């Protein structure tokens, strides 16, 4: 069974249709890249999968491990293993990163019927995870993303990904706002989390990111549909010729 299956998805935002029948099948262990110009509906897809309010699904379905994802509340999806790494992670003043992560992890565990993890056990775990990703410990004590650089914010997303151990990770424009060094560090973190059970959907505007996170499948989106799919070489092709050739196809 595929891990994530998007079938003929149609989505509206305020009466305007953004996705016009999008399909996508992701299997465990695979890394898919979704590329496309601005306004092609890439971020809408990621938001609908995660359950962000404000989108109206007018047709199609999304199955996650065979279950109807659209019937689940967003926090339920998180507990089941759907993770969205945000393009612009928000700041939460006054809430320490480690407190936030502890509360979130326990909420997920509770939803799955698992025991809550105690503070000392959690602290040990989060320190280990941070260490394995070369993330400085002091980041855990700071307010969630408050005063973080662009690179630090993305690393915080990756830290959470590592901690929650989701089955599907959607990375929404992870490269935006990162210089080349920060991009490499973030990509290393993502690569460390690739596994035969876990799938990743990497949404990006530029091919650059895919030099560091090498995908198994590349999809090109235009005007709310997937217009072409292929291997990693498709990304390079796009880099050469641009998106214009697909505008008409859509």
């Amino acid at each position, binding site marked *: 069974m595929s891990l994530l299956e998007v079938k003929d998805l149609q989505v509206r935002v305020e009466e305007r249709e953004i996705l016009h029948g999008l399909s996508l099948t992701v299997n465990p262990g695979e890394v898919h890249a979704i590329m496309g110009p601005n306004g092609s509906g890439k971020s809408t897809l990621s938001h609908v999968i995660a359950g962000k309010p404000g989108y109206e699904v007018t047709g199609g379905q999304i199955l996650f491990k065979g279950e109807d994802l659209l019937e689940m509340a967003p926090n339920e999806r998180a*507990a089941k293993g759907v993770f969205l790494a945000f393009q612009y992670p928000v700041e*939460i003043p006054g809430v320490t990163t480690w407190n936030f992560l502890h509360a979130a992890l326990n909420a997920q565990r509770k939803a799955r019927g698992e025991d809550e993890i105690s503070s000392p056990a959690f602290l040990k775990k989060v320190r280990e995870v941070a260490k394995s990703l070369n993330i400085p410990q002091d980041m855990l004590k700071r307010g969630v993303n408050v005063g973080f650089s662009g690179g630090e914010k993305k690393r915080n997303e990756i830290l959470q990904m590592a901690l929650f151990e989701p089955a599907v990770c959607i990375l929404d424009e992870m490269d935006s706002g990162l210089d080349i060094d920060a991009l490499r560090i973030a990509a290393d973190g993502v690569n460390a989390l690739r596994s035969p059970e876990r799938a990743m959907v990497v949404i990006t505007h530029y091919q650059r990111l895919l030099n560091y996170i090498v995908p198994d499948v590349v999809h090109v989106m235009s005007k709310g549909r997937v217009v072409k799919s292929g291997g990693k070489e498709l990304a390079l092709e796009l880099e050469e010729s641009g998106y214009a050739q697909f505008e008409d196809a859509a």
Partner: protein
Amino acid sequence: MPAVQETVERVRRIDVDQYRYGFETQIESDKAPKGLSEDTVRFISAKKNEPAWMLEWRLEAYRRWLTMTEPTWARVDYPKIDYQDIYYYAAPKPKKTLSSIDEIDPEILKTYEKLGIPLREVAILEGVEPPPGGPQTPSRKIAVDAVFDSVSVATTFQKELKAAGVIFMPISEAIREHPELVQKYLGTVVPTSDNYFATLNSAVFSDGSFVYVPPGVRCPMELSTYFRINERNTGQFERTLIIADKGSYVSYLEGCTAPQRDENQLHAAVVELVTLDDAEIKYSTVQNWYPGNSEGKGGIYNFVTKRGDCRGRNSKISWTQVETGSAITWKYPSCILRGDNSSGEFYSIAISNGFQQVDSGTKMIHLGKNTSSRIISKGIAAGRSQNTYRGLVSAHRKATGARNYTACDSLLIGDKCGAHTVPYVEAKNSSATFEHEATTSKISEDVLFYCIQRGLSQEEAVGLVVNGFVKDVLQQLPMEFAVEAQKLISISLEGSVG
């Protein structure tokens, strides 16, 4: 969407679910006849076996009150109060004279147990349980004065406090036992003519706490008073007087709850604090009076005058308040910085939900030289509530070197509530340094969604964000109350997002 439906349901159940203290104790009580007259004042004074000077003081206040009108400048709106339709005194009928805690009516003991207030002299463990077999956390004692409707029903740890020289007793007892102290200080911070509600309180106050900390003494434990309104149609008019003599220190906490009822009940308290040279009082409040139901019916009118007088040099008064209850709050804990180098602080969290109306803030009156004050106010408005910060910072002509820092932050949850900031600043000399910062923000959909995507429920997400917002004020509370306040904040905001 089912999630939205659920939130709507929760908002509807607001009054039933959230207010955990809404129960009523079935107990016989002794009441003054309904209404207010000179006879009512005499009745209360006689009930308390007060000396003649006290009765005279009350009557003077009563006559004064008759000439005054209810203030209307606050941003609150309520139907006219019929002062003749209130009982001004209600006391649980004593079975006999009490000599120990075990003789208190078991119904009352049960009430306080249900509220989680220790009336037995047990030490409270700080924060968490000690690990099994591990070292015992040093325990901390808290002395409690429990005021039930109009009377104090128990005061704990009196003996231990007495050994330290600290007087902690119901004010009705202090009037009889320490008349010289009461006469010297009562009404010197909040005069009987101060304002409509304070004057009313001066006429009919029935009980409250009295604290005197002698020179050089650091009070060996936290003192607290727990106010409970139980009786129907009854006003609670408590009066608290705390004096920290030269070089002394005391930390005091008050808590308040009331049963949930459809009619509004009046609570008009007066608190007076006095610090002499080098003394410090830290006064913390967790106010959780019944806020009314989801339609705005019922709830307490909390019209309170609290003021501290830093009378001595280098003295300090610090107010910390967590206000989550009451239908209407009208409350401005203030500091008169009279002594040179004295300092005042006001840390406030005011949360309003449903139809609650809050008009609260502080006054920092700089009179002495080189006085300083600090105001940190966090207002959180949800539901259809209105939340106003009203503050005054003033420096007298002779108050050279006065300094103030004010930060007022408001957080809005939803789009049917309002947050307002009304700061007054008056500097009558050129050497004063006053800083004022204010922000208003909304909990954004993006922040909530971020939290929810990480597995938190809507309520948990709001609770987390709000607790982050109020963190710098929570840190001012004694540890065990900070934990309690944090829970209370989350409960108060349940169902606030829809």
